[in-house]
């Protein structure tokens, strides 16, 4: 121990040997899943806050979209929505395969799911560029502000979860693969969350 004097203040002198611990029963729900579920409650409330903001502000304005602002690309985004939902579906299938220890096949489906997710992201980005070209910016009107805020918040989540899942996908391919189906579950849950809020946001922002 490098610093015995400070040690005596905060720790008892002896370190503990960890060899005589009784075995704990395996918890019925893994810690990762519990932690992720709680986090998802917060995330759901975050989006609920954004949705409330949208509804309140929307209710105060008669003309929607306001004068001079472009209409949102409802149709292409509908297609894009399907792509994202499909990605959620393949994610579910990949979990099934991983649970059956079929790591190669599971990894392939996970890859497809991630590709679909990336497609969604790129298509959204393309849409943003076009809207910006039409003169719709964050500050051009509260309409634009809400659009970029809500769709941007969702996109931000997509980017984050994709990045972590791609990392996991990489490690799944390694010869001494440390990732199990159970270990991946919390991340997949987050992806389902991102997939599931999107239709709600789509209906809210694009259709009302």
């Amino acid at each position: 121990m490098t610093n015995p004097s400070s040690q005596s203040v905060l720790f008892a002198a002896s370190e503990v040997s960890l060899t005589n611990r009784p075995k704990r029963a395996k918890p019925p729900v893994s810690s990762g899943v519990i932690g992720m579920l709680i986090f998802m409650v917060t995330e759901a409330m975050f989006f609920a806050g954004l949705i409330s903001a949208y509804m309140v502000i929307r209710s105060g304005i008669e003309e929607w979209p306001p004068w001079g602002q472009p209409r949102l690309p409802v149709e292409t985004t509908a297609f894009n929505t399907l792509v994202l939902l499909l990605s959620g579906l393949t994610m579910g299938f990949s979990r099934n395969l991983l649970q059956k220890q079929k790591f190669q096949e599971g990894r392939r489906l996970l890859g497809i799911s991630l590709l679909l997710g990336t497609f969604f992201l790129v298509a959204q980005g393309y849409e943003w560029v076009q809207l910006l070209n039409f003169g719709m910016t964050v500050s051009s009107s509260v309409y634009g502000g809400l659009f970029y805020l809500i769709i941007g918040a969702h996109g931000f989540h997509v980017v984050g979860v994709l990045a972590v899942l791609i990392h996991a996908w990489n490690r799944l391919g390694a010869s001494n693969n440390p990732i199990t189906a159970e270990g991946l579950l919390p991340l997949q849950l987050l992806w389902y969350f991102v997939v599931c809020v999107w239709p709600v946001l789509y209906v809210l922002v694009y259709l009302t």
Partner: protein
Amino acid sequence: MSQAAAAVETGIHAEHHEDLNFLHKYILPLDHKIIAMQYIFTGMIMAIIGGYFAYAFRMQLAFPGELVPGYGLVGPGEYNMLVTNHGTIMIFWVAMPVLIAGFGNYLIPLMIGCDDMVFPRINRLSYQIFLVSALVLILSFFVKGGGFGGAWTAYPPLSSVAEYNLTDWGSSLWVLAVALEFISFLLGGINFVTTAMNARAPGMKMMDIPIAVWFIVIAVILFMASVGPLIAGAVMLFMDQRIGTTFFLPSGGGDPLLWEHLFWFFGHPEVYVVLLPTLGIVADIITVFSRKKLFGYKTVLYTAFATGGLSFVVWAHHQFIAGIDPRMANIFVVTTVLISIPLAEMMFSYIATLYGGSIELKTPMLWALSFLAAFLIGGVTGIYLGASALDVYFHDSYFVLAHFHYTFFPITIIGMFAALTFWFPKMFGRMMNETLGKIHFWGTFIPFNCIFLPLFFLGLAGQHRRIYNYQHFPDLATQELQNIRIFATVSLVVMLLFQLVFVYNFFVSMFKGEKAPDNPWRANTLEWSTSSPPPHGNFKKLPTVYRGAYEYSTPGREEDFWPQNVAPE
């Protein structure tokens, strides 16, 4: 068996039980006890800043326009900045880190008998983000224009338009700091709930968990479920400030009332978030020092659930005169009055616990009892405010201010001292000095009442909050009222001076105090079954739990306590 294999078995990372150098032990720790200390010490430093601000603006109120010794002149802008940041610091950087993050971190693993949090790295990250948030807040005092002065509730448009608040960067940094702080507690909260769910010692059933742990966990869940909308609101406010959106600006199609909804949707559950940990800590302390079983363990627990559920449906009582729909206001009057029922039930349970016990008035017990007494006044005045017809007159007066100081001060300061004096022997392995502890107690509790009781009367006399100099208001500039203000300020100074006793006692006892036995208070919960201070890894041998946490004075037993981990004969 190798260490790593054993660690896999207990589900905890092995690496942090090895010998660590100073850097990894105290600066970048994974040990929950050290992270708890970091939170507690940071919180206490922030409390000093918050107290200093209170000193400065109270002096201005008592002696308007004069130089404040140790601060200087307090102008109107300065005054607003001081009040705003006093409130922000005390709630977000003192109450939350000390009571929830600090004592939550310290107590949860020890009380449920495991060697660390389930996610130690997330725990460390949580503190680091918290530290950054505190630094950002402190930075905001020094940027051009000074710190934010738009009240801790930050109502727009005042908070969102730089031409109105005159603190362009100060207000943005304020929002940023608060948002970072929320993220930090989110990470911490995930840890708390999972640990309490999954890492309990063998044999510990749901109803054997000490109330302190239960209440911290419930508080964290409340926090996690209510903070989302405010994070959304903070993002929108930040965008309004920095990139020209108009979410809260009526002229641009936004709605300022929206912020109030998002803020108070979090804001009211937040008051219960800080309340519950202290109530839990107090429950543990009063059972130990009255040597009695907690009266109605399950009732107390279920009322906490009820309080938690109800706390989501009362928030609009902060907006009665903000122009919300009167029909909605009426519903919120009913829910607000309803929420006092579970709280009253809890109070009665605690009082019933005291009844007939053999009470020992040690310092922690004094703090716990004074909490009950003082919080009662806070809760009762809340009911007056909850009646919207009365609130039309009381709103934003000193009556409200006195109400929430009679709740927040007992919760934050009294609760913090109760917990610190009670667990000090466990934390540092030494006893605190009882005499100094009692001097500090009386020197805090009496001046506290002298500060805030008069403020109720100032509020009834019509004194409005957040005004830097009442001499401009003929009705409020009378000598009579001014005398009350001076009395409150003098009491504050006296109280602040008495804190020096605590600081002295704290540091001297930490290094020179009498060595503490493992279980100085003869308490039942698991943290007292290990050495003082607990070793790295907490328990020499993981405990097994045989009974609930409150088996005091069990008939037919020689000793008047029965630790949870002692096997029945």
